[in-house]
């Protein structure tokens, strides 16, 4: 015990590196948020604190409509992804091993391995055909696509929670006259809830943040918050973009922190 072991935490370079990463990650955020309160019209030209750009953003119909689209999309996608992920997780942990279990893992986690741009291109090709055939041009395509690539993010925390659950609890419920459904409702689901919540939050944030697939699949005139921001970035660079970005950041942080707090209380 007395010999000096190799300990990463003791390496002076490690601390420096960690701090550098932190700074690189967070300094731009701080600058962004700070600038969103800049009353000046041009970036870099500080002109006093004001909420002027937030007010402007809230009166900007294009932003509001993109925001609503994003929230609907993220809610639907997270809901579908979480439901699918929950059922998949139950199937892969609560049944005896079955043929093709490995394949299911592969399919569920496919979006993590396939480059997003490749998935987007593949979907564009197919959906172009579907669009022509059905004539439907709504948000449905985006919801389906987002649901698909959100599944692994929802699946991970749910599965982790299920694997950590004591199986004798479900046996005990069955012993105490509970049928399968009663056991699921009263024992499995309440114990799984923190995992499901975490999965939902993760899926929601991932969907909210997506640019590539949204940009490829959106119908003309349709915009999500990220694609709207991209469009604005190419045109007039005003501090309003900073205000909108800050709002997006706020939503993401609120969701993740909220889910974390709820999960913590339940365990």
């Amino acid at each position, binding site marked *: 015990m007395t010999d000096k072991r190799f300990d990463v935490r003791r390496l002076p370079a490690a601390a420096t590196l960690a701090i550098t990463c932190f700074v690189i990650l967070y300094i731009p955020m701080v600058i962004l948020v700070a600038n969103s309160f800049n009353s000046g019209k041009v970036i870099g030209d500080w002109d006093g604190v004001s909420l002027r750009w937030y007010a402007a953003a809230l009166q900007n119909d294009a932003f509001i409509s993109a925001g609503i689209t994003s929230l609907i999309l993220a809610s639907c996608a997270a809901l579908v992804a979480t439901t699918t992920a929950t059922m998949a997780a139950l199937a892969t942990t609560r049944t005896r091993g079955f043929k093709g279990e490995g394949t299911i893992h592969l399919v569920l986690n496919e979006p993590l391995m396939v480059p997003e741009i490749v998935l987007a291109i593949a979907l564009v090709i197919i959906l172009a055909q579907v669009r022509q055939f059905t004539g439907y041009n709504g948000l449905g395509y985006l919801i389906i696509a987002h649901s698909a690539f959100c599944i692994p993010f929802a699946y991970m925390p749910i599965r982790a929670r299920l694997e950590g659950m*004591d199986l*004798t*609890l479900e*046996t*005990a*419920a*069955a*012993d*105490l*006259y*509970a*049928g399968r459904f*009663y056991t699921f409702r*009263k*024992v499995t689901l*309440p*114990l799984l809830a923190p995992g499901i919540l975490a999965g939902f939050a993760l899926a929601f944030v991932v969907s909210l943040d997506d640019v590539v697939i949204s940009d490829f699949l959106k119908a003309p005139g349709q915009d999500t918050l990220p694609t709207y921001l991209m469009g604005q970035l190419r045109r007039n660079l005003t501090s309003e973009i900073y205000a909108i970005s800050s709002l997006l950041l706020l939503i993401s942080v609120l969701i993740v922190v909220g889910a974390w707090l709820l999960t913590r209380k*339940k365990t």
Partner: protein
Amino acid sequence: MLDIRNLSKRFGRGESAVTALHEVSFSIKEGEFFTLLGPSGCGKTTLLRMIAGFEPPSGGALVLDGQDIAHTPPNRRPVNTVFQNYALFPHMTVAENVGFALGALGKRQAEIDETVGRMLDLVQLGHLAHRKSGELSGGQQQRVALARALAPKPRILLLDEPLSALDMKLRKEMQVELKRLQRETGLTFIFVTHDQEEALTMSDRIAVMSGGRFQQIAEPRDLYDQPANRFVAGFIGETNFLDGRCEGGQLILPEAEAPVPAAHDDGPVTVMVRPERVVLGAAQPGALVLQAKVEQLVYFGTDTHVHMALANGNTLVARVQNADQSDAACREGETIPVSLPGGALRLLPQEAA
């Protein structure tokens, strides 16, 4: 009330199959405290899980009150289990845990509340009804698990080593408590343990198991005094084994001075004698008399264990009550006569030890 007929269990298939239980048959009477006793891996849990319905039997019948329930799912069997790790629902309060079965059975809330109150009083936990089950001590969790299993009034209560997680003192208390509960409720208990003392003190009848088979089913006293074979004799209490022969109604031990009469078929036998039945010193009429050298005296407070060596190198242990005999009865190193009274000898068929 419960008849188990040729019940067997195999795990796995083909080459790697393990037979956890070989066709066992026995009956349990209403209101009985029945114990399954045996070393680790002998199939106690497997048998209990089959009675509860968690494990389908590979063969045989499980007849409860005249109905074969071998393939009835666990939630339709009037049988409840107290699990070794208690398996309390961590997200529920003590009261919710205890009322779980009644809720699953669709009872009215008023009835559930009333039963839960009564059960918690029975295990003396009324004051903790609204605690979360994770915030209890081991002994309290044990009581909640008991109350939870008793609440729906099962026909049989199954207990799989329920006391093994408790410390010695608590364990003794819970043994008394369990026995009291069983008497008060008049319920049939099937209790699993690998602690022979626990089995002897609590049970009406004990089934000694080994290697997936029943070695003997008997009341504690009979099990101790008349073990059916060497395994049972060695597993329950401490025992001396001596090898001898029977010839023409006489038991001949190579170490003994003279043979004694014995009602046993001719042939090799194993003689079993409990340490507390060995008499030091004076030869008694009708007893086997041996010469033994006292090797070690081990003091245990209420009694002393005398370890002795016989002429042929075999060892013999005697247990002497310190209240009866002065410690001057023997000294380490001296050779003394030892009597094995005829009534204390039990002859068992010889088997490879």
